[in-house]
């Protein structure tokens, strides 16, 4: 009997038939997440509906030494939920109940499959919302947000998912159920929630999340400002920040990204602009009004063309539609594209954009730029035609060179999309072996058998168990061909 059959035999008696997917065609529908270039058909798919079912599946995996991967809505852009060919894919999107909304406590308890925007929609009538707002918020799950420590346009002011989680139920890689944190804002001891958020499913599976709800602001103003060039727009951003304003969001799009968005959603952005800024201010009405005047003045200092202030939610929605649909929109102007996710110190925006266009020219590809200008998180979209021989390689070269550029400026290889399977190979460019080894000490505490989403984040697994200096002979993982020594 294969190991997968052993797992199946263990869990089947305890689960309803529809929870288990063995049919190959149906398994194939789970072969990738939002990063479709990496595809693997999982050996078995389990659709779970409770913490107990997750624990059951994970315990069986642990017993028979089978890797498992948790999947939420599958919208991740780094292959974090890419299945394991010999492993179990645990589908969390069937756990989608909002268990409690408590406005007085500013808390909600949700199952991990709950869609991000649904929580805000449910909390809105109470005057609250869930602040993390990735562009995929209408489809992505909160469990996925926790795994990736998702950001979004508004995290400059409100912080990432990690700042909005106060408690979680974790099923460990051994299948134990552990409660971490709770309703209170502070619990003693090591910050387990802090490391779980953004661990990309490699430290176990979160099956219930207590989140902090944020008070809806009294006023929101959304401005769309056209500039002649990305340089001018970038300087305006610097001036706005140094004027002491902390906008809820500042987003920038360049001419090519504007063209794509216009074709896709007819967002009616200023015609002929070399760049647009979307600036959102929120807070007490009096602050927002004062800040709006400052933003407009600083934008004019840098030759702003059209400045449009959304008069109502419809117009605000249209401005955001252009920005939030930008990734998909480039599909209108190019058959294929790679979404990149680098970070630079914000003040280096001008030179970095110039270097990106040099890279694009040298590689013979086009690059559209969409980014969170407030925090230096760039999303260059490398456009290419995969049907033309050699173009895919050129696009990948350009994409890799852009990451190297971010690192040479003291930045990061990922601001919000995560490392996943896509960028594991870039980790050694950002971190030393000692750095990576240290991170994996933590992994050894949570997942010593290397079963929880293996192969993601780190290019090479660390051997757990005995500390290195006491190791003698071959490690079982090494013998099993699952790991290599450093």
């Amino acid at each position, binding site marked *: 009997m294969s190991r997968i059959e052993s797992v199946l035999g263990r869990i089947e008696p305890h689960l309803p038939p529809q929870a288990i997917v063995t049919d190959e065609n149906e398994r194939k529908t789970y072969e990738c997440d939002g990063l479709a270039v990496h595809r693997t058909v999982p050996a078995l798919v389990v659709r779970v509906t409770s913490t107990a079912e997750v624990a059951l599946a994970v315990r069986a995996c642990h017993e028979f030494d089978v890797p498992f991967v948790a999947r939420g809505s599958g919208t991740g852009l780094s292959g974090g939920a890419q299945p394991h060919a010999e492993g179990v894919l645990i589908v969390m999107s069937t756990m989608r109940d909002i268990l409690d909304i408590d406005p007085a406590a500013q808390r909600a308890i949700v199952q991990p499959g709950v869609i991000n925007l649904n929580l805000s929609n449910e909390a809105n009538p109470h005057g609250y919302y869930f602040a993390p707002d990735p562009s995929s918020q209408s489809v992505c799950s909160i469990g996925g947000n926790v795994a990736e420590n998702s950001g979004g346009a508004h995290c400059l002011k409100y912080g990432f998912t990690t700042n909005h989680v106060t408690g979680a139920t974790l099923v460990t890689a051994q299948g134990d159920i552990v409660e971490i944190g709770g309703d209170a*804002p502070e619990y003693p001891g090591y910050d387990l929630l802090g490391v779980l958020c953004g661990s990309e499913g490699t430290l176990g599976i979160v099956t219930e999340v207590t989140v902090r709800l944020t008070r809806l602001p009294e006023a929101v103003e959304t401005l769309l400002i056209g500039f002649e060039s990305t340089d001018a727009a970038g300087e305006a951003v610097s001036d706005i920040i140094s004027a002491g304003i902390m906008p809820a969001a500042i987003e920038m799009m360049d001419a090519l990204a504007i063209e794509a968005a216009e074709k896709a959603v007819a967002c009616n952005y200023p015609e002929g602009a070399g760049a647009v800024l979307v600036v959102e201010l929120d807070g007490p009405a009096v602050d927002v009004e004062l800040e709006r005047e400052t933003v407009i003045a600083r934008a004019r200092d840098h030759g702003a063309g059209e400045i449009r202030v959304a008069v109502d939610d419809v117009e605000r929605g249209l401005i955001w539609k252009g920005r939030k649909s930008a990734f998909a929109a480039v599909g209108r102007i190019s058959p294929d594209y790679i979404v990149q996710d680098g970070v630079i110190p*914000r003040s280096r925006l001008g030179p970095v954009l110039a270097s990106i266009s040099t890279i694009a020219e040298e590689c013979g590809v086009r690059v559209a730029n969409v980014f969170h200008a407030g925090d230096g998180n760039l999303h260059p979209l490398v456009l290419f035609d995969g049907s033309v021989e050699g173009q895919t390689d050129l696009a990948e070269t350009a994409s890799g060179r852009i990451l190297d550029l971010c690192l040479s400026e003291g930045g990061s290889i990922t601001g919000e999309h995560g490392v996943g399977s896509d960028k594991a190979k870039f980790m050694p460019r950002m971190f030393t072996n000692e750095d990576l080894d*240290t991170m994996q000490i933590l992994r050894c505490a949570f997942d010593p058998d290397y079963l929880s989403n293996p192969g993601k984040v780190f290019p090479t697994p660390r051997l757990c168990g005995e500390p290195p200096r006491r190791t003698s002979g071959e490690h079982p993982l090494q013998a099993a061909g699952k790991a290599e020594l450093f």
Partner: protein
Amino acid sequence: MTEELPRLARPDSVEELSELVTRAHRDSRPIGVYGGGTALDDHPPGRTPGLLIDMGGLDEVIEHSPGDLILVAGAGATISELNDVAATGDQQLLPDFPADRTDSGSTLGGAIATRAVGPRRIGRLPLREVVLGVTVVLADGTIAKAGGKVVKNVAGYDLAKLMTGSWGTLGIIASAAVRLYPKPKTQGYVEIPGAEAALGVLGSQVAPAAVDIDRSPGTEATTVVMVEGLPESVESRTRQIIEANPGAKAGIEPSWWARRAQAPVTIRASVSPALVPELVAQIARLEDTIGYPIQLRGSAMGVFDLGVGGLDTDPTIATRVVLEHLRTWGQKQLSATVLCAPASVWGDVDAWGEIPGFGLMRTIKDQFDPDGLLSPGRGIGGL
């Protein structure tokens, strides 16, 4: 190396720090870390170190970039020096720190290791969210960094968060990158009698930077709201708070602001914000019942320091009663632990209670420091 390892050392670089730790590790000597010495009375004293490391030599400002809202500095730099540096760009450190510790020379590394926090935990992001990256020296002397110096970064595990609040038990913080914040032009304070109004203010749209509650033994509680920003805005929001709350009046920064009450024992109680008014009432009733004074001070977000006992009595019994009563009352929505106490009290009370996830914490400690040499006994639950 023939020279004997000293008992006290003050390294000037991360390499020197690493060398010292490597040697202490080889000799199996427990290591203590000294920053500004402002939290020495907090947490149990732990084992006497065989090597005490004074971090004062690692006080360099490594990078300050106002345009990027970041500051990178050695762990030994003091919070007040760093705020002075940030002020040159009309900015300040984003998290709020306890004023009494800052005044006494609290350092960046110490503030991070002890997860120090001031009243403005509502309007500002918490410390754990704004430590962008750290360089640490591990128990065996390995130098490792995590995170970076950009405000947004999800590459790899966030070990900076793991180190935040670890009390030096997982690694020694050598330097850190933190986020800065535009310095608010002005602040305004409103005083409201009682604690009942606190939740209303927290849930209002005046965007308070802080809502703190202070209650001295035998008296009514007072809620103080702080708003900050542009003068016109502060004035308007202050007025709104006064109009919405009967008895409220404009005030100035109270003398106790961001300072811990002096008492033999301090208990840190953290509760769901919804339970805050009830917690304040519980404390008043408890004080009447047991006859020991209890000072309450903290944020309406749900984190309070309770000063227990008078200066001339043994606080052990009072501490035990307060801890047990709160834990029974608050159940899972509350955590109550001893923050500061005389040596005699630590052994005689259940200082930590049930810590969610403690088994995992124990495993993490064993993985990072298998020989138990880093600040042994300084962490929670004996870690």
